[in-house]
């Protein structure tokens, strides 16, 4: 039990459950099937985006271009289907391929030049976004196959949308990657300390490039899921991903210096953010408050994480004195 308390996700889970009970007590509409459906939709989209950022945080870097990759893939996916009459599967694979290429560019340049990933991905953010706008001239693609539209809006049963299947599978795979595979372990080792991981014989190039490729791939999936949901491919998909993509991993207790991430806690972070945003909407609070709230939540999470570290340090000191 005391072991459980130390987990990052345990406290978050508790907050989510208690919060939901309190909110539904005041506003029964919160647990209405429609509201749960909307909640799950927003969770499924942000889950993929958060995972895409989380894997880069794991290696101690940042990826500002997550949204730009998502947007570029979204318009390529829809553009290929509308303009070139491609069927869904090839368009999807090309979309995934674009995500992988974008991620590879980010990772390869970062690791080969040794320049901070922040600057590289800031540059590629503008490059990818510029390509997006250059291709579309800021016009959306509307002609989406019915199957794609159906996938974005149908429900499996009750309020559970089809759309949630892919994010749940991705979350599971990410958990396996970070906790059960050597690649995941190497990534964390690299994020923790670059020098010692190199001395251990881990190839930096491989780790960084793989992490960025996975990030690009997930961003691509996120972009295409948004297309399914919106039923059109607009160039501004991904523009608003930056803040939420960092919010969930940080609230989930990821240390931005790298070397520590928790997949389940990140997922709970996504759920918490979604619940709070939804609650503010139900209580008819100005949408701009949602933004302010998200900002404050990041700050609070940062303070709590700092406090826990501080407590741990003190406990360790006591032991070393004995």
């Amino acid at each position, binding site marked *: 039990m005391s072991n459980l308390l130390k987990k990052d996700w345990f406290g978050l889970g508790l907050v989510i459950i208690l919060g939901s009970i309190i909110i539904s007590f005041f506003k029964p509409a919160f647990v209405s099937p429609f509201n749960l459906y909307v909640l799950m939709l927003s969770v499924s989209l942000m889950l993929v985006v958060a995972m895409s950022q989380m894997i880069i945080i794991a290696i101690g870097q940042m990826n500002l271009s997550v949204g730009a990759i998502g947007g570029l893939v979204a318009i390529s996916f829809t553009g290929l289907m509308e303009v070139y009459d491609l069927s869904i599967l090839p368009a999807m694979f090309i979309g995934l391929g674009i995500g992988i290429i974008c991620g590879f560019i980010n990772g390869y340049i970062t690791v080969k030049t*040794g320049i901070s990933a922040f*600057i590289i991905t*800031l540059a590629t953010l*503008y490059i990818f976004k*510029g390509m997006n706008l250059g291709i579309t001239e800021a016009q959306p693609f509307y002609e989406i196959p019915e199957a794609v539209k159906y996938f974005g809006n149908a429900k499996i049963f009750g309020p559970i949308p089809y759309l949630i299947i892919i994010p749940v599978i991705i979350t599971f795979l990410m958990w396996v990657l970070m906790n059960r595979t050597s690649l995941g372990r190497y990534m964390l080792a690299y994020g923790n300390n670059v020098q010692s991981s190199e001395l251990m014989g881990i190839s930096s190039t491989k780790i960084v490039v793989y992490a960025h490729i996975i990030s690009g791939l997930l961003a691509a999936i996120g972009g295409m899921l948004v297309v399914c949901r919106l039923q059109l491919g607009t160039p501004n998909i991904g523009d608003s991903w930056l*803040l939420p993509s960092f919010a969930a991993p940080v609230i989930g207790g990821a240390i931005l210096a790298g070397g520590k991430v928790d997949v389940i806690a990140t997922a709970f972070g996504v759920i918490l953010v979604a619940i709070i945003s939804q609650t503010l909407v139900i209580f008819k609070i100005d949408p*701009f408050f949602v933004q302010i709230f998200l*900002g404050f939540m990041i700050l609070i999470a*940062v303070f709590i994480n*700092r406090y826990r570290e501080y407590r741990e340090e003190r406990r360790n000191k006591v032991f070393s004195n004995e």
Partner: protein
Amino acid sequence: MKNKIPDFVKTNQFGLLLLVIVFILLFTFTTDGFSSRFNIYALSRVVAIDIMIGLAMMVVILTGGLNLSLGALGVSAAMFGGWCMESMGIPISISIVLILIFGSFLGWINGYVTVKTGVHSFIVTLATMSIYFGFMTLLTEAEAFRKLPEAFTDFGSMKLFKKYISPLLLLSILTCFILYYLFKFTDLGRKLIAAGANPDAAELSGISVSRMFIYCHMLSGFLAAVAGIMLTARIGAAIPSMAGHLGFDWLLPAFLAPVIGGTLLSGGKVTVFGTMLGAILVTLINNGLYLIDVGEFWVRFFLGLILLFAVLLDRAREYFTSKNSIVS
């Protein structure tokens, strides 16, 4: 091996200066209207603000951090100024002082939270960015202040030197000299650089690193507020969306100028005039891209490529100069 090349030729600034001259010549001969009085005046108004934004980012990069909230902060300060002047009827000079204090205060919040939590300023300013911008939008209800005092807006449209140059540019250049003096010749400036270059060593030699970092963030807020005032004067109104959603439109020029100018992202090195030249270069290229008519949608793409190219070039320069120094 004797080295006959003077030292300043090897610096980043020299390369930048050459590039600026090359681009000016290129655009003058290949496009119509680049050297027209109207275009030069317009350029001077734009570049003035880009320099100020670049400097505001530079002083935070000095600490090894970043300030994502720059745009949100600048716009918040500008809107606060609009409220002071239009709704409260406070005289211009007092309003400007209040705006600067307000900007410094928002910067202080960034610095204080960063220092106290020990979290990277990226996350802190990401959060404050949405908090500042959110509050600003809520309080102003996204309405602009358009009836500012005429004396204030006249300054923004004033033309000097045979109507070629805006006074805004002179203000930016003056700020560059003041910052140069601060970092080069004052005790405080040296302490700020020492704290950024090696926090542990600075702490051991009796400098309060936390305080220095907070000062840097305050200075950043101050300069962002100045940029906000300048933009308000240029447009003639304080508009909530003048730096884009969440102030994002300021971010690329803010990073481009110092990074191209040779400021180290790991902290501890600033180049005031490099940042100035960087801002000039970016504005020139941006303007030239529009004149060459690459299409407004592709401008972003090329700016991104230029940033990438600039950092790679800087990397190559570092590599070759370090090789040279080993040989000699």
